[in-house]
């Protein structure tokens, strides 16, 4: 009896060690330890034995079964590793063979890109430059250069992602203002779109990473009247319809005077609805005339130069335009969301 068990185990382990692929291995495993496997059958046959003998034989059977299974597990790992090794070592693989054209498929622009491209197109036609600035910024460009001093609440830990080395993830596209003033000789006009970061919890309308576009124009004698005209022109180009806007005082350290720009609610046309919280207006963007301290930080003489600036939330604009109700879709990588946006084109 015990010899039989011993023999079966040896046979099984031998077969297992010879197996070259997982399929064979699985078959061998079943052959010995499956429902009708030979070790299992042996175990079932113990019923006729005397009790003490049966106990000892049962133990031996179980030990043998365990031995077979662990040998099989070990071999399984060996085979997988060998397979990967074989895959890794492919001397015959020739990258210079002819490429294979991809089958026709429908691609999709990211909705934030589409919105950004449409804003860029409008401003390009008006002769605006479109530079691209750093996402990891220095405290100086993100705050000091924007007239946000050290004890300002905006600089609290709670709004900003700080790096351990003291730099930060830009909290807005505005650090580009001083960078643009240093890069281009005035007069100039530029917009700079890009991703920005806020240290906050995410929910339906809050996201720690989103996109903005900053607009900046530096010239002599720029006025609030110019700013209103440009903003109206931009928004009508984006929404492809007549837009009514209004400015109201808004406080931002880097503009003076500073404004909140509202647009008349496009859902209700101004008569009031849940979208506009029954006010008829939707707050869209902050803007204003560039603060003299910011001009100075950019190396310009505020007695000679004037400017206006705005910061437009591209993510928010996309949500408004496509009626997207949850901001976290944008960075989700979920193709069920991303493949809904077929229109557009970068150029």
């Amino acid at each position, binding site marked *: 009896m015990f010899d039989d068990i011993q023999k079966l185990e040896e046979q099984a382990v031998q077969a297992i060690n010879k197996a070259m692929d997982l399929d064979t291995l699985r078959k061998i495993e079943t052959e010995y330890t499956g429902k009708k496997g030979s070790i299992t059958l042996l175990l079932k046959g113990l019923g006729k034995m005397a009790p003490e003998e049966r106990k000892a034989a049962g133990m031996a059977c179980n030990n043998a079964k365990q031995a077979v299974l662990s040998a099989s597990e070990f071999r399984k790992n060996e085979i997988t590793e060998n397979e990967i090794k074989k895959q890794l070592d492919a001397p015959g693989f020739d990258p210079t063979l*002819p490429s294979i054209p991809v089958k026709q498929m429908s691609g999709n622009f*990211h909705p934030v890109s589409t919105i950004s491209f449409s804003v860029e197109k409008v401003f390009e036609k008006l002769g605006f430059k479109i530079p691209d600035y750093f996402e990891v910024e220095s405290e100086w460009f993100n705050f000091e250069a924007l007239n946000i001093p050290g004890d300002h609440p905006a600089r609290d830990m709670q709004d900003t992602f700080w790096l351990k080395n003291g730099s930060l993830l830009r909290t807005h596209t505005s650090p580009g203002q001083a960078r643009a003033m240093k890069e281009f000789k005035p007069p100039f006009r530029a917009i700079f779109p890009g991703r920005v970061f806020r240290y906050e919890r995410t929910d339906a309308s809050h996201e720690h990473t989103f996109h903005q576009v900053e607009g900046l124009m530096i010239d002599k004698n720029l006025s609030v009247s110019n700013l209103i005209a440009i903003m109206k022109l931009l928004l009508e180009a984006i929404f492809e319809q007549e837009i009514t806007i209004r400015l109201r005082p808004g406080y931002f350290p880097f503009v003076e005077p500073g404004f909140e720009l509202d647009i008349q609610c496009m859902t209700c046309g101004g008569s009031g609805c849940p979208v506009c919280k029954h006010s008829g207006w939707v707050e869209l963007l902050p803007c204003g005339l560039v603060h003299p301290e910011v001009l100075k930080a950019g190396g310009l003489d505020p007695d000679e130069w004037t400017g206006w600036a705005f910061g437009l939330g591209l993510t928010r604009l996309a949500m408004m335009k496509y009626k997207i109700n949850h901001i976290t879709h944008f960075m989700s990588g979920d193709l069920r969301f991303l493949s809904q946006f077929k229109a557009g084109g970068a150029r």
Partner: protein
Amino acid sequence: MKVSWNWISKYAELEGIDPIELSRQFTLSVAEIDEVYKTGEGLDNCFVVRVDRVETHPGSNKLKLATVSGGTINRTVVCGAPNVREGMITVLADEGSVVKSSSSEPFVIGKAVIRGVESTGMLASPMELGLGDNHAGIIELPPETETGKRFHEVAPVKDVIWEIDNKSLTHRPDLWGHSGIAREVASLCGRKYLPVSPDIVFTDDDPLTVKNSATDLCPRYTAFTMSGISIGPSPLWIQILLYNTGMRPINNVVDFTNYSMLTTGNPLHAFDRRDIHNSYIEIRTAKEGENIITLDQTDVKLNTSDLLITDSEGGIALAGVMGGLNSEVKDDTADIVLEAANFHAGTIRKTAVRAGIRTESSARFEKSLDPEMAQITGYLFARLVLDYIPGAGVSSKFYDEGNWKREPVIISISCDFIRNALGLEIANEKIISILTSLDFAVSEDRGNLIVRVPSWRATKDISIKEDLVEEIGRIYGYDNIPPQLPSVLLEKPWSLDVKNLQKIITDVMVLELGFTEVMNYSFDKLKYLKALGIGTENLLELANPVSKEEPVLKTDLIPNMLGNILLNENRCEQLRIFEMGRVFIQQQQDLPKQPRMFSFIIGDSQIKNQDDLFYNAKYCIETVIKRIERGNCEIKPCTTELPWIHPSKSADIIVSGEKTGYISMINPVAQKAMEIQMPFALCSINLDLLSSIQKSIHQFEPLPKFPAISYDVTVIVEPTVRAGEIIEILKEVEPELIHNVRCVDYFEGEKYAPKRALSFRMDFIHSSRTLKQEEVNEIHTQIVKKLSISVEGQVMT
């Protein structure tokens, strides 16, 4: 902040102005009003009545029958209130009144039969009249209140409340009280402003010692004592105004401090005079290890930058934030010390944030209040006590300690500057009248203005010319400025090369190659890094990561894109995604390097031969490189080592001789570790490198004058011989004659094993004549020979 129109109307002549209409203009010119609502609606039929008689209800021992009178009213109503008694003055809500129920649903009063007794109207509790949550009994009015009047004629219950967005007031310390709002409203409406100007006579009966040892953090500390006070309820009208602006009426002293604060914006604090040891008050910074227990019973551990109000024993108030429990006004308080101070904004904010105690007081001091307001507010409080607490009096002199007097802020500005900045033709007179209406002192000399800024606007709000431009613009109305596009000089066009590349590539990927653009976070997930065997030592670490799982900035787009596959692979057979964006590489000094990368992934769960995906990816990148005119694209042995790069099924992408990226089958080890099922290939390009490559415009090739002869050759070689090698060999056989050599097919299988067969196609073209058959044969012979020598190739016939 809630603002009451009745309250504003005490400080400006506003008869006939519609507060609802005006709220729109206020939003456009001053600060955003979130909500406007009326109070006291439905109370028109509420009358002041006297309870003449109280009898028991025949059908209930809890209910009573109250006979009330006032004017034409004389009737008996059923009343369940425990406090109803003969002689009290209260309010009858008559038929048609709309009162609040305890579920705050409106409830219309009518006729009712209560336990067999008919009753019309009811005696109302403060809650039912919309005046708080007190529903324990009916409202009790002062005994001198005239009966028969409508309730809203004797109490300011009918009001319009503006709920102003606090954020839009952060830079306006002068607007945190009703008198400041009234000044703006008066200016907007062209009406007269009525400043707060109480007059108080002080004595010297109860001397204090007031020592200001921190004049930089406490520019002004004023205090005085009052005696003979009896604590009780404040007048109904004050309770109503407080309640309608979001404050709970407590008792007269507390209500008066709140009322004074909500009038001028300057918080006050009253101490119980008994608890000020040795009549000594000192303002100083806290000592190391010192603490104070505030009114809300919080034990606040202080540090040396916190400002503390102390007596001879220790802290009695956490300056500007909250009073101390040890000196609070109690029910039996008869004498008080009233503090009216001005504190440094940043200090109060830091202390409040750190202690986690944000109060109406700290919210106001954080805005940089005008030190002038301290005195006015203290006086206002004293006036209320003298007027409404019989027997109370001022018992000390007015202590005023600090260093707060500043030179007034004077701004020189020309009217032309204002006109230019606004882009608006506005007359000098109009400019001056706007400034004057806001209490700026203006002197004019031929369009040049010397403007003195009032103290309440000078603390941080207004200091430069541009600030005055805003004053003119907002009061004049931005809607009244005609939009005018700026005129500019033409200039040379400029565009950022890498940006142009990004746009072309995006279009090619989406429109031509069928990819979907993804955007991933700029952080790496530890889970992915671990699976890929990437350590975090050289990564840029966040001091305050969004989660412990994403503590570092990404150095590559690929890991998060692998996450995209995981998310989507079960929902699609074919997956084509690309991303463009910055990654972050640590540098010794300065900001990190932030190269712009472009990566794509092409996967197919149904593909028969997985390696085909590599050649699909190769097709895509070749297509992209063709479209951007940066010269030729070569595929060279891979020199890049990354966990996801396959050691043998990968290649570098060389554009015009420069290595700009790589293309690879997924490394099976990485794939297994990431638990991705779908087979895929990936490609990554450094866009900054790519854009640094000189643009190379394809030059026209003259069309052949003589017919080209298409020639195919198939050669059997060892599997290690690369098709690319053979192409180079073929080109060199007759460089003048052989053109367009390309590999068109390859065959593996038993027939050739272990070797394989590669097919090439090329054109033979002679520039000046048609090639003869013998010449073609001759080239063929050369090709056979050359392939045999160089790669031991055997040409199939």
